[in-house]
């Protein structure tokens, strides 16, 4: 009798252990799968570093090590947190805070990537297609109002840096240390690292009309420099991530 009771007791504790294991195992797998929710809820993709492959593949291929973060001379690349689900630890660029201005010249982030999440196809900045600039708030644009700009582009407390070739070819300096005095604001064109990606075009045929409107051309790589340097608040120009990936044809 006691042997049977002992056996049953044993069985009961075995069953409990099994239930506990199943419950906690499911909880862990469920927590991991919860990473899908932010993806489903996210309306638009992050702006990924140069060379990033198609977003879906990017999330799979990225090993979340941050080596691209480490090599970026302007520290434009930051890592996503757990609130981005499966995107945890993946690199992105918040262009308004710090754009990629190709200060490294040779696409260091691509060279640093160990898994091919940043494709080696682009070999120079002009071949990158990470995003595309768009005029988001045309009415706020100083050039469209024919206005100039004087002072620090983003105020004295702004921490972003940029490489000014005329100041130091090799070392990026704080934007706050480089005040401007422009009769007509052309910061987006002036600081664009890709020649001809953005231009200012006249708004009428009247030669005395000072007003100019920014026009974005297909050669735009989406580095975000225009969004970063735009002195209005919020920025006139924004970058839309190119969902199709950034490798050139």
């Amino acid at each position, binding site marked *: 009798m006691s042997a049977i009771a002992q056996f049953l007791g044993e069985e009961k504790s075995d069953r409990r*252990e*099994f239930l*506990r*294991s*199943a419950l*906690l*195992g499911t909880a*862990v*797998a469920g*927590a*991991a*799968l*919860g*990473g*899908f929710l932010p*993806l489903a809820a996210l309306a638009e993709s992050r702006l990924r570093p140069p060379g990033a492959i198609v977003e*879906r*593949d990017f*999330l*799979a*291929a*990225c*090993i*979340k*090590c*941050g*080596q691209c*973060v*480490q090599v970026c001379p302007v520290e434009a690349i*930051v*890592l996503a*947190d*757990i*609130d981005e*689900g*499966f995107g*945890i*630890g993946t690199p992105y660029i918040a262009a308004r805070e710090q754009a990629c201005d190709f200060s490294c010249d040779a696409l260091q982030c691509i060279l*640093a*990537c*160990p*898994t*091919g999440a940043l494709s080696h196809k682009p070999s120079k900045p002009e071949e990158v297609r990470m995003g595309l600039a768009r005029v988001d708030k045309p009415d706020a644009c100083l050039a469209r109002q024919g206005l100039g700009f004087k002072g620090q582009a983003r105020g004295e407390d702004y921490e972003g840096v940029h490489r000014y070739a005329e100041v130091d070819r090799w070392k990026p300096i704080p934007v706050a240390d480089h005040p401007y005095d422009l009769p007509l604001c052309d910061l987006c064109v002036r600081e664009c690292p890709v020649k001809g990606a953005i231009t200012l075009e006249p708004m009428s045929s009247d030669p005395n009309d000072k007003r100019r409107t920014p026009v974005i051309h297909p050669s735009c790589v989406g580095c975000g420099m225009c969004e970063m340097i735009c002195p209005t608040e919020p920025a006139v120009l924004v970058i839309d991530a190119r969902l199709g990936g950034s490798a050139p044809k």
Partner: protein
Amino acid sequence: MSRLLDSFAVMFGREPAKPTPAQQTDAAKALFQFKREPEQVKKRKQFIKEEKTHFKPGNRWRIRRWISIVLVNLLFVLSYQFDIQVVEGALTASRFVGFHMADLNSALQVMLAYKEVVINLVIGTSTVLIVWWLFGGRSFCSWVCPYHLLGELGEMLHLKLAARGWAKDHQLHRGTRTVLYVVFAALAVVTGYTVFETINPVGILSRAFTYGISLAVLWVAVLLAVEVFYSRRFWCRYMCPIGMTYGVVGAVSPVHVRYNAEACLHEGECRRVCMVPHVLSMTKFGWNEDVKQEIGADCTRCGMCVEVCPTGALKFDIKGLGKLL
């Protein structure tokens, strides 16, 4: 061979079993008979009684391991924060003075999800595979993994609470980890996302150290809370697929802990301190298949059993070098 398969089966969740006489060598049987002689039993009891007065286990291996864990993780942080460039990246993937290294489990998840493998990842994975095969796979856990250190501290707290009756250890079935391993591998293949990385505490901690604190650290805190209040070494024992990947890699490693039944008094101190006590089943009286044998594949080479064994029946050993030394 069958001993190796057994060791795998036990790592995957089977309860260790007492060997049948057919599995035991003649020397093991003879030793067992000898140890059962009344005079030997008396002697053993006397020995155990006496040893309590003069043997106090130290902390040598634990201190060495903690130094190793702190140093390795500190190198990652210093490499970035102070630009000394020794190991750049995080524990998921890095460059060690320029050479690619990739965590085997993270690399596996990426390969399964992305289904394409670039040469750099092959280089990184092979390098790490060779390194951890040499040291014995799961030594990654106890010598490098930052979560292991937190887990150890959590375990100390858990044992203190348990001693006062404020917490109780709820054991789980060790097969849970095997099931989860298959589930996470399947999820990576089917969804095309590295699902496990979302909750991988090793990646989360390593990135938090180097790149700054993140919200994800809260998840690690939840895991720790479960370990302290509900289930001793919950994550490392029953859940972590990384541990299993390395366990498989290091199963036939040259570095291992060696058991010598001749010296063993069968007190069971080793199993009490071990994170994976099923690997030490041969230390039970009459459970050894041979007089001297390696302990199982799930062993993390943490050295706690070596430290706590009063008779030196458990010792680190390097295959081939043992005879030379």
